[in-house]
Structures are given as C-alpha cells and as structure tokens.
C-alpha cells in the first residue's frame, strides 16, 4: 500500500546534491510532493525535507540510494505519526475586502491566521499548520477572490532522535 513518507536528509553543503537527490526520485518515477532545503541544527550541515508517496519497501530502497551519495551524511524516512510537521501558506487578498466584506475579519480570526502586511491595495494572510488547515482557509477565502496563493514545502521534526551530531563525531 502506498503511504505518504517524509524523508529527511542531512548533507554537506554541495550545490550538485539537489540534482543528485532529485534524480534518484526521477529515475524511479516517484513524484516529489514537496521539497524543502534549510540549514540544520549543525553548522554547515543542510537538511532536505522531502515528501513523497510510495510503498514502504520502495522508500527503504530509495533512502538507501540517497545515503549512497558521497555527501549525504544520513537519510531517514518517517510516516506522519512519527513527526511534527507544518506547512506555511500565504494568501494575497484585496484590502478593500476588509471594509466592504467585514465578515472576512472573522474568517481570519477564527482560523488563527496572521495578517503579515497591509498595503492600500492588498493585504497578506499567513497560515501555518497541516495541509487540511491551509486548505480549509483557502476554501473559506476563495469566495472573496484570492489574488495570489502559495504554500511552502513541508518542514518536519522527528519525535525520535536523529543523532546526527554523534554520527558526525564518529565519522571524524
């Protein structure tokens, strides 16, 4: 059965690595649902967070192939119940709505979203949460006309330890 997996990859800083990792998915016809790259808790170590849907046997092999890359320190995969995860969405709306359609203010309040900027022409709502939370807000805002919408890749923290620091210590 196919499941959603969150793959966390700790790597050295190498510009070619994104390409190499993406190729591993491409070669196996696995669609990347979201991808995020950031620094990690360790200096000069990057962290890729990749979300993709596949069978567990496939993700096991895939992580093996990712770890095989020279500059990959360690790769893990997790199911949703093993991680804390979020996505952030931004919604650009017309500022006139705040005066002409006042009920939109309630929508924003009830969704515990933030208004990050207000301009004479537009304002921007930011909502962080799980996919269904940002989707729900999207559905509520859609009747008012969304000028722009964007959602980030998933970021996640595992409940169990990843032990990268001690691993790096051993590799030294």
């Amino acid at each position, binding site marked *: 059965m196919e499941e959603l997996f969150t793959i966390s990859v700790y790597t050295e800083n190498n510009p*070619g690595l994104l*390409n190499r990792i993406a*190729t591993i998915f491409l070669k196996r016809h696995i669609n990347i649902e979201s991808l995020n790259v950031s620094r990690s808790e360790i200096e000069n170590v990057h962290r890729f967070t990749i979300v993709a849907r596949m069978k567990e046997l496939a993700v*096991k092999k895939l992580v*093996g192939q990712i770890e095989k890359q*020279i500059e990959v320190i360690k790769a893990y995969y997790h199911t949703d119940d093993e991680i804390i995860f979020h996505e952030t969405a931004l919604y650009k709306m017309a500022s006139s709505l705040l005066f002409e359609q006042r009920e939109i203010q309630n929508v924003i309040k009830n969704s515990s979203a933030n208004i990050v900027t207000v301009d004479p022409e537009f304002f921007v709502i930011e909502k962080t949460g799980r996919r269904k939370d940002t989707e729900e807000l999207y559905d509520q805002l859609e009747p008012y006309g969304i000028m722009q919408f964007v959602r980030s890749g998933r970021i996640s923290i595992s409940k169990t330890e990843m032990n990268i620091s001690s691993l790096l210590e051993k590799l030294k």
Partner: protein
Amino acid sequence: MENSTKTNPTERISGAEAVVRSLLREGADLAYGYPGGAIMPIYDELYKYQDKLQHVLTRHEQGAIHAAQGFARVSGKVGVCLATSGPGATNLITGIADAQIDSTPLVCITGQVASHLLGTDAFQETDVISISAPVTKWNIQVTKSEDIPAAIAKAFYIAKSGRPGPVLIDITKDAQLGELDYAYEKCTAVRSYKPVPKTNTEQLKAAAELINAAKKPFIVFGQGVILGEAEAEFKALIEKAGIPSAWTVLGLSALPTEHYLNVGMVGMHGHYGPNKLTNECDVLIAIGMRFDDRVTGNLNTYAKQAKVVHFEIDPAEVDKNVKSTVAVLGDAKDTLSKILPFINENNHDAWHNEFKKHWETEVEAVIDPQLKPTKEGLTMGEVINQVNKETQGDAIIVSDVGQHQMFTVRYADFTKTRSNVTSGGLGTMGFALPAAIGAKMGAPKREVVAYIGDGGYQMTCQELGTILQTGVAVKIVVLNNEYLGMVRQWQQLFFDKRYASTTMVNPDFIKLAEAYDIQAKKVSKREDLAGAVKEMIASDQSYFLEVMIEKEDNVFPMVPTGACVSEVRLS
C-alpha cells in the same frame, strides 16, 4: 619560490601543473585522453611531464575512457582519462555509465570554459556536472586553482575506496591557468562517506550457521570477490565447506575454470545446472554480486525455496532485488576470512553430482555441437577453444557485447584472476577494442585477446589508430557472422525472424587492419583455424584475426527475458 623553505613546502605553480603533479602523487603514470581548447593548459603541462606521465592519445574520447576501464580492470589501479569541455566531456559519458554500473575506479578530468563564461552557452560549454551526476560515484566542478589538489585527492580516494566507481572533475580554464600555493595531501576520509560498512558479528555467525546447516548450499559470486582481492579467502571458504560455486559474468576469473567446485555461470546464457539448481538449493550464498535481472530472470520465481545469505559491501544492494535471510555487510576479503573459522568442513557430493549431471546434459545438447561441430560453418565456441589451447587459459580475455560475448564468457578458460574484461551491466558495444588497449597497458607482460563481433568492432575501430601510434600488442579476433547476432537471435526466437536492421554489409576488415599496419588474417574454413590462431598467439605484435562464423548460430542455454531461471532452454 624564494620563501618556500623546509617548514613551508608549498610552491607557486599553475592549476594545470597542479593537476599533473597531483596525478603523479596518486601514482598515476598513465592517462588516456584527447586534447581540446578548454583543457589545453593541462596538455601543455603533460608535454612538460611526458617523461613521468605517459599520455595515450586515443582516436575518440569514448576510446580513452574504455581504455582507462580496461587498464583499471586488469591492474586494480584507478584509470585516468582526460577530455576537453563540451563534446569531449559528453563523449566520455557512455564509458562513465559503464564504469558506474560495473564498479570500475576511474578519475575523469574534463576541461571547462572559463568560469566567467559558465552559463552563457559559450563555445563548447556543456553542463557536464549535471549530465554526469547520475552515472558518477561523485563529481565536482573546480573554478579556483587552489581547490585543484584537494579535489583530485578526494577523487582518487572516492574512486577506489569501498565499492569503486567513476568520478569526474570538471576544471574551468581559468582555474587551470591561475596559480596556487601547491601542497598535496592525500585524502583518507570524507566525513559523510563510509566506504566499507561495519560487519556485524552476529550476522556473520548467523550466516555461518545457515551455511553449516545447509544440505544443498549454492554459491553465486560476482565481481566483489575480485574488487575486494578476496580470491584466496573465497577459495578457502568454498573448499572448506565443499560448496558448488557459480559466477556472474563479472565474477568470472575469480576462480579458475578448472577448479573442481566451479560449476559455471548463472543467468540468461549461463550454464544449465546453475540455473536449474538455483531453484533447488536450500541456501543461496551470494558473494559480491547484486542480483541483476540478467542473473535472476523473473524475481517472483527466483530461489523462493532458499534461504539467502548476501555478502555485500554496498548496503543499498542488500534486499534491493532479492530479500536476504542474513546480510553480511563488509569487504569480501574481510568478511570471508572472518567467517572461515565458523564454517564446518563439509562436502556435498550428492548435491554437487546434480550439477555434474546437468553439465553432461548441457555438453551433449549444447557444448559438443559448439566445440565439435558437425556442420560446415565455424562456431564461435571452437574459435575460443582453439585460443584456449594456445594460451593455456593464461591470457586476459576482453570481449565486446553480444553473442560473441556470451560465447566468450562461456567458453574461454581462465587460470588467473582479473583476466576477464567485458562490459557487463551496461552492455556497451564498442567497449572491447579500446578496453583491450588499456588492458595490455595495465598488464604489459600478459597476452591480451579481444573477441569482438563485426557490429561492435565498427563502433570503435578507429582505435586501431591508437594501436598504430603506441605499438601496443593486442590480439583482435573478430567473430564475423555478418549480423548483429544477439539481436538477430532474439528476432529469430521472439519476432518471427523479422531481421529488422540486423544484417551487416561489412567492409574488408583485413584491408582496414593493414591500413593501420597490423598483421591480419581471415579464416573461413575449419582447417585454417588452428594455424592462424597459433600464428596470432606466437606474434609479439598486434594481430588481427577475422573468422567467418556460421551466420545464424544461436547462444544457448537461454533464460528468455522474464522467465524463471529453472525454465532455462537448451535450444
């Protein structure tokens, strides 16, 4: 430099010179390549260092990389090749892919346009880092002169450590021309890279228990035995436990042909017994092999009755195709020597006899008709057998890809390891002629015989020019059936003999060889074969032998694609 004292061993030199000196520091005294605009500064240094580092000019970059592969395969050293940017670099790709899938250690150095031109679609600019990423173990673009020594040190370390593979260093022209304070330090570790996984003693003991308890154990060994230089440890293990052992195409020559436990080859054109009995063994012991589809046939019916013990250096290969009962990670030399004390002395004569019975069946149905043909046309098997007689199985045998390759691995005799050079995983036609050149340079004292089909020969026969220029003495045997024989065989068996684009109208190969000043002979009749082979092997120069082969001969046994290995066909 005036200020370079004993305490400061650095010198100010160009990036290009740093390349050559770093190669020398890694023990590379031979490189194959082809010059061009973006790599000219390095070639200028090669000119200056020509008494220390021999550069072999091939006739095509593909020839250079296959030669480097042949060199690496027989010598165990890292093969080095050089090419310019753009087409020079892209012409290496086939060989890089070949080396990646066959785990051959190579360092490829490509020139690149100057860094200020990167991304401008400059003349001969190609993004070789992206192109080569999926087929290299590691690659890097160097845009600063001072980064060159460390990149080369890391490249050699990665290429040869663990499971070997090709690496590529792309060096911009300005980095070659710029200067640096040169100091060379060998690379001994990369923190994110663990070349050899740690062996788990529990797994080792569990493996020994399975092997000891087995009634019908069967070993399939691959190139891991050769790459790990574990031939002696391997032999000690199989002799102590008395286990019939079969090889993959790339495992060939790790165990002498005549060894009493050598039961032949597994896989699509492997021997009858090993394929049949794969599905009857109770413990299948895989050593340094990766269960390629050409070995396993249909995975759903492959050795399902057996417990599987997998000795492997690359963790990603474990459970990739065949689920193992016990996996022993580590370098074969190390794991095989560690397991030996836990292995009971044993023999499995009754089980071994089953292989012998199947062998007799195969001799009657397939091998005798090849080696003692009653038909008029010559067979590939009898040509190879004739060469065996002259070389006593001591030669390095290089083969190209196709029918003749399968005949070669089936019929050539081997007494020494690292003697079988062929393109296994990628199946690269055109591999053999340049690989034979490299093999001869990697083992100059040994006889090198290349078997090549008339199709594959014409893919890289421009390398006759390299033979002419270097005087390297390789023996070239073209087995000519005037067809792309393997494809034709499939067309005959699976496409109702519709021979689409497999008929070859060939040039006069003898004239072609003679044009390059290579002694040449053509054999069309059986009675001329022995004399011609004798003359070829006796020659201390390169020699070209063309043998006209029965046109529609087929390679058997055969496991058709997707079939079960025990459904192996004898005809």
